């Protein structure tokens, strides 16, 4: 049997360059978890149905189980491991931890990535906007309510910090 040729990829993950040699049929999810040991990205179906594997590609939420790694060369990939910067947690991470936004924690990395993309495009989202942005992320534990509240808390914290720094600038 002819095994496919391996591809040499240069990926940019969490602002770090990552060189991998992989089967070109491998999904981004597989490369992240198996070749780069970034196991924070989860999988619940590997069919694009549950949202657990959501990562950001050029800032947009993408189901990493449905994207081939070779398609992601030249893009900026963000995973849960890159969400805290130099040990400083993102306000969403703090809000989820404090307000019941997670229980088993398995859908959490994907939910956080979708929420991060939302807050980067909409600084003060309404509940319908939150529901729309996160409706592709299934969660079986929380009943979603505390996830929504966590996103709202994080938005408030970010806006307050922005207002303060704007105030300091002026």
């Amino acid at each position, binding site marked *: *049997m002819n095994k496919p040729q391996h591809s040499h990829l240069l990926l940019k993950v969490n602002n770090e360059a990552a060189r991998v040699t992989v089967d070109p049929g491998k999904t981004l999810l597989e490369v992240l*978890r*198996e070749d780069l*040991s*970034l*196991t*924070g*990205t*989860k*999988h*619940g*179906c*590997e*069919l694009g*149905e*549950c949202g*657990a594997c959501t990562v950001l590609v050029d800032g947009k939420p993408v189901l990493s189980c449905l994207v081939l790694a070779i398609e992601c060369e030249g893009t900026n990939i963000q*995973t*849960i*491991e890159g*969400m*805290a910067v130099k040990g400083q*947690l993102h306000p*969403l*991470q*703090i809000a*989820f*931890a*404090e*307000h*019941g*936004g*997670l*229980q*088993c*924690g*398995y*859908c*959490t*990395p994907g939910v*956080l990535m979708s929420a991060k993309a939302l807050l980067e495009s909409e600084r003060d989202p309404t509940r319908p906007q*939150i*529901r*729309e942005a*996160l*409706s*592709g*992320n*299934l*969660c*079986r*534990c*929380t*009943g*979603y*309510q*505390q*996830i*929504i509240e966590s996103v709202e808390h994080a938005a408030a914290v970010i806006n307050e910090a922005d207002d303060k720094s704007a105030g300091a600038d002026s």
Partner: protein
Amino acid sequence: MRVDALSKVTGQTLFADDIRLPRMLHCKLLRSTKPHALIENIDVSRASAHPGVHLVLTGKDFPVEYGILPVSQDERPLCRDKVRFVGDPVAAVIACDEQTAAEAMALIDVDYRSLPTIASVNEALLPTDSPLQDYAEENNIHRRLSYSFGDTEEALEQADHVFEDTFFYEGNTHMAMEQHASVASADPDGRVTLWSSTQCPHYVHRALAKALEMPAAHIRVIACPNGGGFGGKTDPFNHEIVVTRASMLLGRPVKICLTREEVFFCHRGRHQVTMKFRTGVNNDGKLTGMHLQTLLDGGAYGSYGIASTFYTTALQPVTYQLPRYSFDACRVFTNKPPCGPKRGHGTPQPRFGQEIQLDKIAEKLDMDPAELRLGMVQPPNALTCNYLKVGTIGLADCIESVVEKSDWNNKHHQLPSGRGVGLACGAYMSGAGTAIYWNKMPHSGVQIKLDRSGAVTVYCGATDVGQGSDDVLVSLVTEVLGIETIDVKCVTGDTDLTPVDLGSYSSRVTLMMGNAAIQAAERARDLIASAVAIRLEVPEDHVGFAERLVFDVEDPSRNMTFQEAVVCAEEKHGTMATTGSYAPPKAVGRYPGGGVGPSPTYSYTAAVAEVDVDEKTGVVEVSRIYIAHDIGRSLNPVQVEGQVIGGVYMGVGEALMEETTSRRLPPKLSDALVHDSPSMLDYKTLTMHDMPEVLVDIIEDPDPNGPFGAKEVGQGPLLPIMPAIANAIFDAVGVRIDEVPITPAKVLKALEQKAAGRDPRVGPKKFPEIKWPQAMFVLPPDEGGDGKASNKPQRKRAAKMHNMDKVTES
């Protein structure tokens, strides 16, 4: 903030599939394509020769059967002679990677000889030459149970009204987000370690020892944090045993991660139940007696099924005063994935029926449904007619809370057509009073280690499945020792390191682990206090613990740090460690079967659902759920609320859309009975768009049997949701949907029947004929019973079922 929160929001929590070991191989299971067949031959030669394949196993490699209940040891890691559903595993391939294993699987040739398929409960009741299981009682009947607590027929005859209703509850599944995964690693000295996504490492430990015929002491099972369980990871699973054996044969680590489709095949989900209630009621709304019959579709194996069967009947009397009660319950085998325990284990189905029937009773007697229930709530410390000991009961407070918060009195029967409110209640155990296997040992053990560094480590076999049990463990220890969360490390779910806890099921962990943890922590506190008392020259009971200080309670300025206090204690006592144990109180009922139902205490819940029904499409939108839960005492309000809302979420899903069904493929394909929806797209669950707003009220009435008074919250809040929604639909549009899921098609059908002047109801018309055994008679405590069974045939069922004149067909 719960102790595992930060590792979860940063992606650092290691679930089973996140574990990767050097030289690790990968396992895939070949699963049956036949619903019911004999295996005539398996040829694995081509698969074994496939490059990259290290090992191929079949049923011949696993001679010993196992199963979760001692009475149904009917599973094999790989089927040997027979397959019983599409998805039953027949062979395992261990290869360098998953892809290679999958390629090799396609090279295995299995010759099957098909047997007749049993596709429904009705087919299972018929005579057969080829029963699924050779230990079936008769035909494909797994087990029948008949009990009578007092002369129920007499109670029904003497009632002013007898209500007879049938209900149907379709089966459904857990669909935890994490796919089951396991990694086994054999040591050269003959020991083996299994990391697994399991809720019950202790039961997996026992099953491995049995199925692999090796000493349990040489096996280590580590339960990884579970990515959700809901009961779906409480059975020991075939894949766990297969990878353990494979690792031992190969001397290398072996991993398996099930596909989502395989998770649907593992199932162990909610049983489909058909049920019939005959309930006697007087004009004042008091119940005189109830006769309940249930019929469960168990799927292909025993699993927890006998317990599930008991649970479809056992808990009805713990909510409302019920002087007499009898039940008949029957579980059958069918060629489908096996059913087992899902959140609420066997109790949501009869709760659904009972709470709808109470709504019908209230309607008929022209009583308010809340008032009807308030008039018959069990008093605290009641002993039910089936000998269950109620402790504290906050059910009346729960009902009053949701009535007030929902503005029930201004809404029920008063909202415009298409909008309605419905009320229902429920109760659940805070842990099963008996273990899965009979023994006199603790149900939960905790050890605490302290040393001169001031570090405290707490060890317990309990498993965090997302419910937050690690957090409960740590917070109870910090509370007793007056230290902070960061000061306590917890080690859980590891059979080498931690004392036995039976597992995360039956809502038992907070209560049982919690009581053991408090005992261990108090013993540690007392050891420290005895040493500090000498140093501070105060009596031992004057030593206080708070804010990381140990002090004289009369003069807190005389103090030392917690670390200094531990040093003191280590000087006096030597190496420091304490233990705590918990076993539930003995069951009061001493009749055979009386072990299912008793619990140290019961939680209670009431809910009001508010719905909008579109009369053109039949679509039901649940706009709001008001829910009050009696938890005894809330140990962590954010987590408690999360459990309540999560229960509501799953309940709304079960009410409206979740269902596990089967269908036959077209004859030209294979005619096989297959799972209807083995994917997350086809198995419908609520998304964030569908989830109603939930308003939670926590009722606290500390129970002396709970840790600091706490009761369960993981399962109870689901129970009232389905009937509350069904009752709200009746209030909205005047139709009764006596089955779940309540799909738009069923609502439309009922509305059409209503418009045509026919019975505005969708639901089963009758309960199947079943030959029941002679009922076990137990005289209720109120009639002088002593909790034992008597052989007096005091039941009049054989004579006349009931007085037809008095039946109010509701």
